[in-house]
């Protein structure tokens, strides 16, 4: 049955029969990709335009609806070597983009006004010390007012609105002193101009707005960039569901497009995409990820099931009760919230400091004014000094110091394919001094390759076809070799042992040696030889033992060397046999390794490391190493995209490459030192500038420049987290074909991953 993919929810159709879709594209890395994608698509009939946004890794395609459909476009991109995922930017980002544009407009207006007012101010300053007449000075002051007042009314809105929002709920934020400062400075200036005074402060007010807007825009821009990468990641992992159309036809739709009342089919091995009620069919569901219950639960018509359960045995039809749990928007929000908003220790501290500091600003300014009045200064001088204090003490730099770095660093991590599950992951990663690896699925790829050199191809083909009916990971690896991809009819899977079926009238068995009747031989030969695991096949009196080997992740060697170069201790703790672990440790030149550990022994090992004062980073497969991951100071999991939501490591990475692990450590270390620098900068600025301002030595203009200068300095320093030392192995974590295969596995079949479903239902079951 040909699959029909329905993407209508993501397609915008116009009156004249044209359609438009936005796709998040995976694997874009260089200028060549732009050309390859755009020209490749334009060759298709009916395509009007294709334009790749290289900054955001998004592709906009316009086409004539009658001639081609969106699914074909995605197919074409796949043949070009790029994964493309439907993406609805208008849902996720419109608001963000509008906000950023608005800030930029305010910035432009403030910039224009600031330059022109300064032009007039400098003339007045030089005129004041030479021969300027009072009429000319008044003209210049009024001209300044003419420019500054409307400009401040427009460009100050971001601050005024935010201050008003805070005041309405009886709170103070850092926009309140800014607003008060600007309004005071402008009001005082109009009064001074009206009484023909020598000084006016239009320039200070407008300069303050201009520089603050620079800082605000930078901050907003980096947040937006982080958000873009988060939403790309979220759409890369979007899953599909099979929905029955009105005519009973099965249509493949993205899970986020499911609606309440839809009837969907969930086949064995698939994850239930939404909460709902089963209409027909029997099956067993693995709900361990939701309830922790490891025994599969039998379900039939009328049973309520929850999104995230895995269907183990039979196909069921269900009605969707609540969609929206897996929508893209939720997913983006979740990713961002976890990575940037979850409060780490330092962030909490900085927050508290900023909150306590805001009232302090107003009190200091008021006290300064009162103090100067009591000391006999004029009202004008007292107010000017107070305004300077108000502006200069504003805690913007302190409030920005940590979050700015956090945002930039997590954006960089998102970009390299790392997803942060906890807000303090960056800080914890930065402190790590020992790295513990799991072997299987971490240093090696989760999916194995079949070593078919010594096996009769005929027999292998039959075994592989039979393997199509099994869920076990080893069988999944084997099934890739099947040329004829049709399962044998009436194949029965015997849980924990294997699968059997009638082939050409004779029984064939695939599974454990005992299951295949090889019991005697199996006792003589170890179940696995060397580093390979084996699966047995018996048919019509012929037997085969098929070795399935694991491959190292393509960049494992380079990454491990990179980590060693950061002077981290590296240790392998594996549950696998010593013969399998040793060659891997040797290839990676990791001297400390232990094999045949039970999960409990792994925990003990990590705990003893921790009790020696080490901070341990555990890199392990999130699915079966969960307790060990939880024990370590901080944990990182390589993970198949479909499992993102379920894993509980502090951070996850997608793709075949191990490089994100190295990046995570490098970026975090850099981020930590930038955070520290920023705090020192912000505190030093305040400690220095406040006494000078209180002493009345600073004009409001200097105060405006100094204060906004400190915020911008902090933000720019945070932006360094975007560049800095990164590993230079490859740029983007993608599912690109593995390079640099282990020489030992050349000539073997590369296998794909039906592993996802298989690991769950086959967990802990010897085949």
């Amino acid at each position, binding site marked *: 049955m040909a699959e029909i993919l329905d993407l209508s929810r993501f397609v915008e159709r116009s009156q004249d029969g044209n359609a438009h879709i936005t796709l998040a594209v995976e694997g874009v890395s260089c*200028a060549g990709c*732009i050309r390859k994608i755009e020209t490749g698509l334009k060759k298709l009939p009916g395509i009007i335009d294709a334009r790749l*946004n*290289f*900054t955001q890794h998004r592709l906009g395609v316009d086409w004539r609806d009658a001639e081609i459909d969106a699914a074909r476009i995605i197919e074409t991109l796949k043949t070009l070597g790029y994964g493309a995922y439907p993406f609805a930017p208008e849902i996720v980002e419109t608001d963000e983009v509008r906000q950023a544009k608005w800030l930029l407009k305010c910035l432009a207006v403030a910039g*224009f006004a600031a330059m022109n007012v300064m032009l007039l101010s400098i003339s007045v300053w030089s005129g004041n010390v030479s021969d300027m007449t009072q009429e000319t000075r008044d*003209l210049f002051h009024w001209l300044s007012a003419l420019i500054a007042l409307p400009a401040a009314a427009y460009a100050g809105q971001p601050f005024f609105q935010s201050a008003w929002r805070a005041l309405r709920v009886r709170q103070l934020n850092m926009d309140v002193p800014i607003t008060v400062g600007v309004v005071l400075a402008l009001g005082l200036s109009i009064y001074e101009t009206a009484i023909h005074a020598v000084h006016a402060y239009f320039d200070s007010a407008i300069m303050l707005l201009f520089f603050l807007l620079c800082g605000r825009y930078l901050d907003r821009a980096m947040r937006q960039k982080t958000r873009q990468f988060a939403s790309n990641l979220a759409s890369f992992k979007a899953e599909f569901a099979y929905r029955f159309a009105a005519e009973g036809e099965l249509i493949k739709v993205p899970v986020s497009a499911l609606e309440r009342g839809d009837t969907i089919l969930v086949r064995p091995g698939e994850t239930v995409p939404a909460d709902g009620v089963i209409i027909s069919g029997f099956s067993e569901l693995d709900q361990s990820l939701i309830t922790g219950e490891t025994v599969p639960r039998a379900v039939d018509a009328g049973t309520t099931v929850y999104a995230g359960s895995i269907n183990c045995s039979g196909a069921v039809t269900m009605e969707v009760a609540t969609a929206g749990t897996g929508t893209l928007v939720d997913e983006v929000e979740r990713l961002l919230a976890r990575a940037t908003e979850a409060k780490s220790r330092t962030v909490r501290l900085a927050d508290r400091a900023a909150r306590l500091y805001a009232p302090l600003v107003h009190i200091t300014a008021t006290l300064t004014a009162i103090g100067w009045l009591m000391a006999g200064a004029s009202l004008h001088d007292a107010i000017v000094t107070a305004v300077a204090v108000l502006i200069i003490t504003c805690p913007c730099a302190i409030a920005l110091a940590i979050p700015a770095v956090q945002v930039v660093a997590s954006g960089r991590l998102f970009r390299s394919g790392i997803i942060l599950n906890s807000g303090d992951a960056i800080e914890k990663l930065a402190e790590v001094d020992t790295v513990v690896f799991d072997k299987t699925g971490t240093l090696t790829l989760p999916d194995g390759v079949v070593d078919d050199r010594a096996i009769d191809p005929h027999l292998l083909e039959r075994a592989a076809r039979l393997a199509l009916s099994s869920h076990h990971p080893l069988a999944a690896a084997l099934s890739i070799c099947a040329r004829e991809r049709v399962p044998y009819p009436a194949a029965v899977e015997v849980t924990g042992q294997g699968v059997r079926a009638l082939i050409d009238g004779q029984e064939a068995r695939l599974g454990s040696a005992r299951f295949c009747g090889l019991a005697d031989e199996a006792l003589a030969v170890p179940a696995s030889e060397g580093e390979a695991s084996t699966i047995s096949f018996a048919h019509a009196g012929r037997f085969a033992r098929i070795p399935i080997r694991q491959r190292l992740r393509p960049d494992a060697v380079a990454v491990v060397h990179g980590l060693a170069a950061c002077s981290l201790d590296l240790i392998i703790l594996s549950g696998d046999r010593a013969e399998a672990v040793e060659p891997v440790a040797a290839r990676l030149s990791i001297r400390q390794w232990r094999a045949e550990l039970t999960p409990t022994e792994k925990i003990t090992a990590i705990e003893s490391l921790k009790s020696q004062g080490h901070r341990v980073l555990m890199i392990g497969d999130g699915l079966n190493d969960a307790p060990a991951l939880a024990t370590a100071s901080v944990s990182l999991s390589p993970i198949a995209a479909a499992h993102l939501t379920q894993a509980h490591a502090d951070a996850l990475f997608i793709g075949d490459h191990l490089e994100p692990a190295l990046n995570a450590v490098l970026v975090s270390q850099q981020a930590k030192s930038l955070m520290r620098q920023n705090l020192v900068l912000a505190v030093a600025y305040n400690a220095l500038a406040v006494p000078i301002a209180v002493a009345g030595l600073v004009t409001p203009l200097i105060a405006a420049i100094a204060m906004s200068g400190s915020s911008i300095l902090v933000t720019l320093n945070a932006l360094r987290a975007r560049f800095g030392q990164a590993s230079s192995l490859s740029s983007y974590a993608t599912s690109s074909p593995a390079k640099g295969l282990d020489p030992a596995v050349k000539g073997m079949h590369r296998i794909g991953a039906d592993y996802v479903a298989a690991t769950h239902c086959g967990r802990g079951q010897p085949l």
Partner: protein
Amino acid sequence: MNVLIYLVPMALLLGLIGLFGFMWTLRSGQYDDLDGAAVRILPDDDIEE
């Protein structure tokens, strides 16, 4: 000082031209793909052979 009568409006006018120019570039989406713009000049597939 009579020169100010046309110099000041001229200065303002120049500034305003710059401001509106910027607003136009913003509206026409010229800042949407800065990295892309930098690499798009590299291929010469727009040259007729």
